[in-house]
């Protein structure tokens, strides 16, 4: 059994290495400006964010809707710390160049982004994690909104630039010129790898126990609050890094983008991929981004085939079609693409798991 496990690990690593090679190849053949590369970048960033949300919602059974708030904190921490000194006066045009008068390196800034998000999560988690089910959902949603309002507050403008844009910080394109995709994949890969290691550790098992049955988990000596807090903080840590990566991807940053709609979108990705499946979330992220921002774009264009105007196609139809697909998944394919299994488990002996949990 052990040998088999090793073989599988080596095989998985080989596949990952192959994918990375392919990514480098794609970028070098089609150029970093091509649609494929852009979509792959965003897909990778969303994959990390979706996996971080899955850690909470899918693996620990905590229905939290605060992801956008933690991404916001991560994104702002990163941007504030990395905007070059020379550009600060232009960016903080209403606030005399802002109060942060130093910059740090890109990777340390990414780490700080995660840590800041985690710190906030620890603070927020203390009261909020005592709530259950949908109350937790609505409270975290509320906190995310409060964070967004706070960041845009004029009084802390010297720090956050109020509701104005942050720009000129290092982006994905400048981080590792020529190999943006490799850089994105590396950061995201390391983060997801860490999450996977955690999920398969004894702590990960405890998270799953809490998801399956809180009362039994507590009777097994698992301190519910501490473990929930851990999951919440770790999820937020990676959401913070994900937020920073999203900021790097966008090239400019504004608190207004991090609305609850963003959280919903990530939640839907997690659902489509399968609650409790890391590989499902990754697959669904790429698929979701590719469909919604690339392949289905033609639905928005009024199209004539000969003299025949294709019905329904008009601006906004893409989103309608897309939301219908999502409803179909939610209603009829509730387990999503992967259920709660992983790609690399597909060949294993474990039986299909029941879709219904909680009660």
């Amino acid at each position, binding site marked *: 059994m052990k040998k088999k496990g090793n073989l599988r690990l080596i095989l998985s690593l080989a596949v990952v290495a192959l994918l990375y090679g392919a990514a480098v190849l794609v970028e070098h053949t089609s150029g970093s400006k091509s649609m494929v590369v852009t979509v792959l970048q965003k897909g990778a960033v969303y994959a990390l964010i979706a996996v971080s949300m899955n850690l909470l*919602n899918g693996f620990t059974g905590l*229905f939290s809707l605060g992801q956008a708030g933690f991404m916001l904190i991560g994104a702002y921490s990163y941007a504030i710390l990395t905007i070059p000194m020379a550009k600060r006066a232009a960016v903080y045009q209403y606030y005399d160049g802002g109060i942060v008068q130093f910059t740090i390196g890109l990777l340390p800034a990414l780490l700080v982004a995660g840590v800041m998000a985690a710190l906030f999560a620890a603070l927020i988690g203390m*009261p*909020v994690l*005592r*709530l259950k*089910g*949908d*109350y937790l*959902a*609505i*409270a975290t*949603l*509320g*906190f995310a*909104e*409060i964070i967004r*309002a*706070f960041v*845009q*507050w*004029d009084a802390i403008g010297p720090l956050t630039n109020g509701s104005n844009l942050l720009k000129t910080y290092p982006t994905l394109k400048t981080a590792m010129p020529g190999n943006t995709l490799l850089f994105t994949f590396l950061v995201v890969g390391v983060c997801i790898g860490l999450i996977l290691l955690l999920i398969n550790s004894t702590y990960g098992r405890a998270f799953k126990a809490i998801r399956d049955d809180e*009362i039994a988990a507590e009777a097994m000596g698992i301190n519910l609050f501490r473990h929930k807090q851990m999951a919440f903080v770790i999820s937020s840590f990676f959401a913070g890094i994900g937020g920073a990566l999203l900021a790097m991807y966008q090239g400019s940053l504004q608190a207004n983008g991090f609305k609850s*709609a963003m959280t*919903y979108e990530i*939640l*839907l990705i997690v*659902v489509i991929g399968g*609650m409790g499946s890391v590989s499902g979330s990754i697959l669904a992220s790429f698929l979701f981004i590719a469909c919604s921002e690339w392949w289905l774009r033609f639905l928005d264009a009024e199209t004539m085939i000969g003299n025949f105007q294709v019905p329904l196609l*008009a*601006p*906004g*139809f893409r*989103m*309608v079609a*897309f*939301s*219908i697909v*999502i*409803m179909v998944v*939610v*209603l009829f394919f*509730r387990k999503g693409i992967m259920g709660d299994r992983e790609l690399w488990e597909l060949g294993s002996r474990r039986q299909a798991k029941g*879709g*219904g*949990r*909680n*009660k």
Partner: protein
Amino acid sequence: MFDTLLPYLLAGISVGGQYAMIAVGYTLVYGILRLINFAHGDIFTAAGFFMVYLAAAMPPALAIPLVIILTVALGFTVERVAYKPLRSAPRMSIMISAIGVSYLLQNLMWYLTGGLARQYPVLPGLGDSIQIGSASTKVVTLVTPVLTVALVVALVMLIKRTKIGMAMRAVSVDFETAQLMGIKINNVISFTFIIGSAMAAIGSLLYFTNYTAVTPTIGAMPGLKAFVAAVFGGIGSIPGAMIGALIIGICENLIKAAGLTMFSDAFTFALLIIVLLVRPTGLFGEKTTEKV
């Protein structure tokens, strides 16, 4: 002092009453399905659009009942299509479905209306300005609290006195047992959505008469606030929802009066979190224990 505060209070009571109309839908549905019906705010928006389009084609006397009927039909359909198939599914699934419906309705409304704000028709009488003391406001500001109280009283009577009301109470106490006792769960749930949607439709008439622009996402914020009101008042309690909504409406306006305008929405969420932590059952809710 009072002269200065009067307009804020009037606005607060009025908007609070309108939140109350929406909050009733949340509190009833949550009481029975334990579901935060995220799509409720969008059903409220849809009611606004129905009026915009119907009023262009017919007199208000005809349009108003038709708006209520259409909104009820929408609420009913949403329940049947998106919630009923998930009756035995985990709670998280049904909530995700609710978020999905909200997403769908917003996108659909955007697609159909083009997204430009639509001017709400002026309802005769309600939209006129009147002078109260030093404050000038719309007639609807005065009508709202009266109508809200009347409807809430009627609703409480309905739930206390009628057979269907009794069935609703039974289902909200214990879903399975009520089913075993021969109560047709699906009918009761549908009825709940019908009442909630009808209230949302009436609420939209008042709300949009006061705030005359309708856009596809305009209902999201009042929806969330109404939900907070329902939690604040004690989920499941209709008078609680009304009082919670009035308090939120007034506080919101007083906060703006104090100049802290940008935190008027954040306040609502802060209130929600405080209530959930200090008294999760709200002002009028009852405590339940989980069986091991």
